[in-house]
Every structure is written in structure tokens, then in C-alpha cells.
């Protein structure tokens, strides 16, 4: 056979096998439903749902003073951080309402609050916070402390003859935060991006592993092995097909949910993002191929995937920054393609940087991908001998 003929046959084989994988995947209704859910609704829910910033904390007020000052203080607990849930006639009622869980905090203002302030005495207000939802509760307490602090600072300045908030004449150090890349501290951006990365990782391991183990389970792999296909020709189409599907799903998540709903910015090159995503999927698929060689059926491969993917997701820096982890975990995670891909994805989307800054991550991922995939391939060949 001439070289060009061989090439034609090679391409034909890869093409029919890839087509077969896609057909099989599209006909697997439960898996498709899970895939679509994971890249649409679940991205939306996660982006919207996980909140560490204070939002809509229900506030009950027991105002025994009913004065200008008390009203002024209460008005400073405003939306979007707080939600005014009404006044209480008796402070004890507050505990009942907190126990019921409808509201989060009770602000108790004593009698003579205004009088004390005007006459220059110190006074105190009381705040009960239900911190069952601890991040929200702790933030609420912190916000409340800052609001009261600000309020009293302004009172002092008014008393000293200054007007309003112009603090120019008073010696004071201001602490002001500037956030880079995500100035509004829009959490939906980071949460939806990390969720997308999680889903890509899970499917990049699961899909090729499931497809390979299914052939083993049904005995069709035997038929492929006696055909002139080489192990590479059996495995490659699966990875190609699954990569295409995951890239498609990523595009849907990005352009169908994150961009229109959360206005996630795409500051860098979309082409580069998808190119490196493809590289990431292929690298991660190597783990899936390996998983398929040590398992016998789909249930086992599902559990194996969980076992491999869970630490990868937890430790690669999505949930907590890599910098906060023990040194040995950091070294271990050098073996996780996700560790590099997080930097690449957030870098391209939020920072707008390109290969000039990300080359080391891209190269690491490439090297890792070649070795993981090569290892998976070696195991795949070996299991049939």
C-alpha cells in the first residue's frame, strides 16, 4: 500500500470510529441529560447560589427610643445587604423570631439613646445575630459593627463642629480596598468559572472511561481487537469525540449562561481558551483511560472517577487557593492538570492575558498530558495481553 493510501485508511478509521462514539453518546439519554444539566442549569445555580458576601440579611428592630438618632441608625442598615423585617413590640419577641429562622438579626436600641448622644454621653445598642449560616452571620455582625462605628464617628465630628463626612481637617488613616480584575467583587464570575472547570474535569475523566469500559462490558472490544484497528485507533476516536462534546458543552455554558446572565467578561482570546481547554481535556482523559483499564464495569468506573476526581477538585485550587495548602500537597498537585488550567482559564477570562504569561502553565499541562495519556495508552495496550 502506498503511504497516501495508508493515510486515507487511517483517517477513514478514525472518522468512522469518532462518528460511532458521538452517535452512541447522543443516544445515551440519561448521560446526555446529566451533561446538559451540568453545563447549563447547574452553572447558573452555582453562580447564583454560593454567596459569601452579605445579602438580604433579615433585620428586626426593637426601638425603645423612637428618636431622630435611632431612626438614622436604623436607616443605615439598607439593601442589598440588609432587609428590614419590621419592628418588634417587645425585645423577647426577637428571640422567637430568630428561632423560627425568618430573620437573621435583632437590633435593640435602648431608651434615652438620642438624649445620651446629644448630651455627649456614651451609650450602647445591642445586636443579636443568628449565625447558623455562619459566613452570612459573621459578615452581618462585621457590617453592623462598621455601620455603628461609622455612625458614631460622624457624631463625634458633628459635635466637634465639622459638617458631614468631609474628614479633611481631622487626622485619620483611611483603609480603602481596590480590587483588581473583578472590581465589583462579583462573585458569580468566580463561582461560575470554577464550576465550569469542575464540570469539564469530571466529564473529561468520566466520558472516555465510561465509553471504554462499556466496550469491555459488552464484549465489543474483542471485535475491535481482531479488526485491523491498533489500540491507538480504538482509543483516540473516543478521546476526540469526548473532547468535541465537552468543548461544545463549554461553549454553551460560556456563551449561553455565563456571558448573558452573569456578564462574565472574556478579556483574552477565545480561540486560545478553547485550544488550551482541549489540551486540558485530552490530558485529563488520560486519567480516565487509566481508570477504565483497572475496572470491569460502569459502576466501578464511576466510583473510580469519584476517587480520582474528588481530591483533584478539592486540592487543585478551586475551593481554596493553592497557596494556603501544605507544601507537599502543592508538590502533589503539580501532577494535576487542573492546577494549571485554573490559572489559564481565569487568566484568559478575567485578566485578559495570553500565552506570553501563561506559557509555563501551558507547557506544564502539555508535558503532563503527554505523560498521562501515554500512561493510559500503555495500560490500555497491556490489559489485552
Amino acid at each position, binding site marked *: 500500500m502506498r503511504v497516501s493510501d495508508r493515510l486515507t485508511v487511517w483517517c477513514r*478509521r478514525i472518522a*468512522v470510529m469518532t462518528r460511532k462514539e458521538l*452517535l452512541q453518546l447522543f*443516544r445515551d439519554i440519561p448521560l446526555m441529560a446529566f451533561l446538559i444539566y451540568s453545563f447549563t442549569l447547574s452553572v447558573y445555580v452555582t453562580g447564583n447560589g454560593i454567596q459569601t458576601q452579605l445579602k438580604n440579611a433579615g433585620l428586626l428592630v426593637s426601638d425603645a427610643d423612637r428618636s431622630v438618632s435611632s431612626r438614622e441608625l436604623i436607616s443605615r442598615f439598607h439593601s442589598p445587604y440588609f432587609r428590614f423585617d419590621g419592628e418588634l413590640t417587645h425585645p423577647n419577641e426577637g428571640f422567637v423570631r430568630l428561632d423560627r429562622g425568618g430573620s437573621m438579626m435583632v437590633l435593640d436600641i435602648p431608651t434615652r439613646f438620642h438624649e445620651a448622644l446629644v448630651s455627649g454621653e456614651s451609650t450602647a445598642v445591642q445586636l443579636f445575630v443568628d449565625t447558623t449560616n455562619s459566613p452570612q452571620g459573621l459578615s452581618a455582625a462585621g457590617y453592623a459593627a462598621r455601620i455603628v462605628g461609622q455612625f458614631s464617628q460622624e457624631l463625634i465630628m458633628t459635635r466637634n463642629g465639622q459638617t458631614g463626612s468631609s474628614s479633611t481637617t481631622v487626622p485619620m488613616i483611611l483603609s480603602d480596598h481596590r480590587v483588581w480584575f473583578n472590581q465589583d467583587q462579583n462573585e458569580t464570575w468566580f463561582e461560575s468559572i470554577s464550576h465550569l472547570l469542575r464540570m469539564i474535569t469530571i466529564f473529561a475523566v468520566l466520558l472516555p472511561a465510561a465509553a471504554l469500559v462499556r466496550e469491555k462490558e*459488552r464484549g465489543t472490544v474483542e471485535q475491535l481487537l*481482531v*479488526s485491523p484497528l491498533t489500540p491507538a485507533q480504538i482509543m483516540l476516536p473516543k478521546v476526540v469525540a469526548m473532547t468535541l462534546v465537552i468543548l461544545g458543552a463549554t461553549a454553551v455554558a460560556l456563551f449561553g449562561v455565563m456571558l448573558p446572565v452573569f456578564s462574565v467578561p472574556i478579556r483574552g482570546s477565545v480561540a486560545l481558551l478553547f485550544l488550551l481547554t482541549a489540551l486540558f481535556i485530552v490530558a485529563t482523559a488520560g486519567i480516565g483511560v487509566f481508570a477504565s483499564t483497572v475496572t470491569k464495569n460502569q459502576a466501578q468506573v464511576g466510583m473510580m472517577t469519584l476517587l480520582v476526581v474528588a481530591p483533584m477538585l478539592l486540592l487543585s485550587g478551586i475551593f481554596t487557593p493553592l497557596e494556603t495548602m501544605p507544601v507537599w500537597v502543592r508538590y502533589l498537585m503539580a501532577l494535576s492538570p487542573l492546577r494549571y488550567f485554573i490559572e489559564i482559564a481565569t487568566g484568559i477570562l478575567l485578566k485578559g492575558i495570553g500565552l506570553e504569561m501563561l506559557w509555563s502553565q501551558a507547557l506544564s499541562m502539555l508535558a503532563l498530558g503527554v505523560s498521562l495519556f501515554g500512561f493510559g495508552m500503555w495500560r490500555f495496550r497491556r490489559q489485552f495481553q
Partner: protein
Amino acid sequence: MRTGASSQYSALNSQHFDTVVSVSGFVKRYKKHVAVQGVDMEILKGEIYGLIGPDGAGKSSLMKAIAGVLTYDEGTVEVFGTLVDSERAAERVKQRIGFLPQGLGLNLYPDLSVEENIDFFARLRLVPERDLIERKTRLLAMTRLDKFRDRAMKNLSGGMKQKLGLICTLIHEPELAILDEPTTGVDPVSRRDFWSILAELLQEKGMTALVSTAYMDEASRFHRLSFLSSGKVVASGSPTEVQALVPGSMVTFEATPQLDAIARVKTGSRQVEALGPLLRVFREETVPAAAAQAITLSLGDITPLHLRVDEPELEDVFVALLLRQAGQLLSTEWPPVTVLPANHGLAIEAKGLVRDFGTFRAVDRVSFQVKPGEIFGLLGANGAGKTTVIKMLTGITPPTGGEGWVAGAEMKTAGGAIKERIGYMSQAFSLYLDLTVVENIRLFAGIYGLDANATDQRLKWIVSMAGLKGYESSLTSRLPMGVRQRLALGCALVHQPRVLFLDEPTSGVDPIGRRHFWDILSRLAREEGVGILITTHYMSEAEHCDHLALMYAGRIVAEGSPGDMKRQVEKEAGQLLEVATDQPGQALRRATQAGFSGAALFGTKIHLLSLDPPQDEARLRTVLSSDGVHVQDVLIRPLSLEDVFVYRVMLVERQEQATVKGAAA
């Protein structure tokens, strides 16, 4: 050689006619699919009642409902006079039932030892400890499992697992044993063991058994039976009664050219089978001479050789009944033969093939040759090494030693070339069930590198050859087993291979589908000169092969054409005598005591081998009548390949034991 009209059923007449199970108007649906539609059946105390039919005929649904583990939609099921219509009703009869579900050892615990499994089932059924010890000892001895008491169940062979399954089902001595396909996938020797254990226990304990099977040749082992097809009873009664439903004769002869002969006899009969060089034709004439004459007439100027007329086997009867029901045999056109370059030399040659797995020698110096246009059958039990031989020749497994050539290419150096020249079809049919018929064919066309033009041509050829018209865009999972099987064959033939490997390709297919499949195979061999290597554990199918090799423990222990192999056994051990008596159990005991070796119970009759039939018959009659057993009939039956297989394997086993003893001494 035909049986007299004597009633074989008289053996049961002497016993009580208690009804154990009574089923009427039974209907079971799975969503829209009707699995069983209107079955009536009555099982009497002390009989082995058979349910026969292919996969999906509704056997398992019926058996599960009788065992009280499956609800049903219409009709009534009464067991021991109790109407089983609710879980509470089922609980009342469960203690008196033993149920062995389908699948080798599926009811057993793989990690428990043989003894632990038995103990578990006995304690589950609250068998008193003393009874347990006594029964266990006896059953283990009967099944020859006593040497393996401490072996984990997962390390037993298929036949041993099934025998253990039987022990666990019978340890509480149920009055009714329900056994779902207990012999499927079990080698013929273990299968015979299984039947004789069952017969003995039934006799002794007055047990009743309901047994299903997909092997048509086991039908004659039942006292009475129902033949199921697509959820309906096609025929029922005793084997003799069923046989009487389709009066006729089977004419067997050799004729060349075979294909012309087939075409000519087909005008007078719809049931024509090619068994190697032989043709087997069903004729409606009951008088042997008339049937023979009809064949000679229809053949015209072709002269039949070795012509012989027998009564139809039960399988022939079933096929005839199915054909009556279906109207006619699904016809497929044989598309024009594509002329390929002539193939010189052998299709397959194996020389001293050896394969070791660790210290275990799976294949031991296996040599054979397959010529182009020949159907070569490799027979053997599970684990005999058949599949490993195929795996070596197809290049999946490298051999430890020996040489092999396939389609002119050397096995070790030209594995790639071999793969391009062979077709392969495995037990599981290896199709993608979630792809349609056409998608499957196109996939394999692409894998073998066919271009668009060639693909379209072959697609048409396969569709008409395999009779797939109308199924083109159906998902493979929705196809009946027979169609699925022919599609798998089509996919294996997509690239016009010169050599075809078939690894147990006919499991679970109904008899008509199986015959159709064999039709295609013999045309492939005869017309296109394809060399075919096939493995099977259906002994009746082995008759279709031109040449057989019998494997045992990794070695080929016998080789030859089916006819040669039978003649050889007849020469060494004698002819098969079938003895009908009024007390089969008693007769068997007496015959064994009197030194008739190899005597076994076969339904209500006794089978034994005899080198001198007239003298042995006389001796047997004297022995039995002195014991008050009335001998109704003694007939010489043709040997089946199963008889050959069992004889050969037992012989090898005995020789091995002798050498072991010799070495020890």
C-alpha cells in the same frame, strides 16, 4: 428404526396422579411487551416437566411466577392447591419449593466455599443440623464435589458451579424443584451428571421438577413438556405425543453437487439441512420406503448415496411446528457471488500451538488444518481451550509456542495482515446495540478501510444475504436474536474475508433462526470457498461441520468428520441401545449392577452402549424380568455427537486417573 406406539408414560401411571402445579390462562406483560400470552399447564407429582424454547419465549417469566417471585397479569397459578396470587399466598408455598434461577451460579456467593454455600442455604431453610450433615455428605458425593469442599465457589468450573447450585436448591428437600436453564453453557459431561443426579433424587424423594432448557436435544429427557415460542405453547405432552403431532420421516443422504441437490429437494420439502456432506430432509411420508422414493424422484439425475430414513427428532418436530405457525421460512436472496482471486493453500493451519497462563497450560500442542470451503468445528467444554486457540490465531493473544498460518499469513510475524483477511464473530455477537443496522455495517466497513463505493455495495449485499430488509434503520437492541446474529455475521463479512472465525455464535437463537444461520454458513463455504472455524457447545449443531476436533483440557483428543467419529465410537464401545421399561429407576439400578457400563436414564428410557446388541438385549431382558421389571422395547438408536463427546471425555478422564494411580504406585 422406529418406536412402537407403546406408551412411555405408563411409568407414571402407577403413581398417584396428584397435580402439583396447575396454570391456566397465564398472561405476563412487561409494560407493552407481552412475554407470555395464555399458557395452560399441569404438572403432576413425581414427573420432570420440561419447558423448551429459545430466549425470550417466556420460560423464565412462567417459572418465576410459579416460584412466587413474579406477579402476573391474567390467569391463575396454583401450586400445591394454593392459589398463588399475592405475596402472602406465595410465602405459604415457598418452603416447599426450591428455585434455581437462570445463570451459572448466580444464586451462589462467589467468595464462600462450597461447604459454606450449602450451609448457608440449609440454615436459611432451617434444615436441622443432623439432616444437613447427612444430606450434604450424600449430595457432595453424588456430584463428585466432595474433594472441593473448601474451594471458593468462584474458582469452580461452570459445570461444578451448576451442580453446587443444584445442591443448594435441593438441600431442604423441596417437593417441587424449579430449575431455570440449569444446563445452559455447561459441558456435555457435566450435563449428563446433572440429569442423572436429578433423576435419582426425584425417584428417591418423590420430588417433582420443572426444568427449562434451550437445548432442543434435551427434550427427550422430560416425562412431559411444553414447547414455548413467543409466549405461546406450540406443543405439549409427552415426547412421543409431541412427536406424533408431526408425522413424517427424516431422510439422510449424500449427494453431489450438494447445492443443486438442495435446490431440487426443496421443491418437495421446506425442511432441508446440510450437515457437512450429508443432506437431511423432512418428508411427510411416514412409510420409510415412500419417503426414500420421494427423495430419489425429486433428485432426478443426481443419485443419492448412503440413503437412510429415520423418525424425526424432537427438534425437527419443533421446527416443523414453528414453520406451520410462521407460514414459511424467512427467505433470503443469495446475492451474486463476487469473484475473488483463487485462494491456494490452506485457510488455517495450526502446528503445535501452546499457551501457558502462569503454570497453567491452557492450550497444549494443538495442530489442525482447515481447507478453503470447509466448515471446521472445535468442540469442547467451557475452559477446554477453544477460545484461547481462536485468540492466538486471530492475533489477540501471543502463543507461548508453536506456529500458525491464517489466510496465507504467518501468525507471529504478520498479525496485521491476518486481521485484515479474517472475519470474526464472538458469542456476544459484538454489535453496538445503540446503533442501527446500517450504522453498524457502515462502522465495520470503515474499520476495514472500505471506500464509499465499496461500502454501499457491501451494505446491499449484507442486507439481502442476511434478510435484513425492513430492519435497516432499527436499533440493534430491538432486533430479535436471530436477526441480530445474522447482522453480526454480515458485519464480520463486510470486507469479504477468506477465513471466518465464529466463537459460539448461536447461543440463545431459536431453532429456525439457527437453521437459517447454518444455511448461510454452508453457502459461504460451498459457493465462496470461505474457510470457517467454529466453536460450539451445542452438540446437535456440530453435525453441520465437515470436520470436527474435540478439545479436552487444552488438547485435541479426537478428530474426524462427524460420521467418522461416530463410527469410531461404535467400533470401540458399541451401538446405542434404548430400553423402554415400566420401572425406569429400578431397571437402571439392576442394569448397572449387572455390569452394563455407561447405562444412564434418559427421560423415561435407559440408554446404554453395547458391542453385541442381540446378546446384550437377551441378557438384559432376563436380568430385568427376574426383578419384575417389564421390558417394553429395546431399540438401536443412532449415536449422537453428544454420546461421542461424553464417551471420549470419560475415556480420557479414566486414562488420566490410571496414569496418576500408576505414577503413585
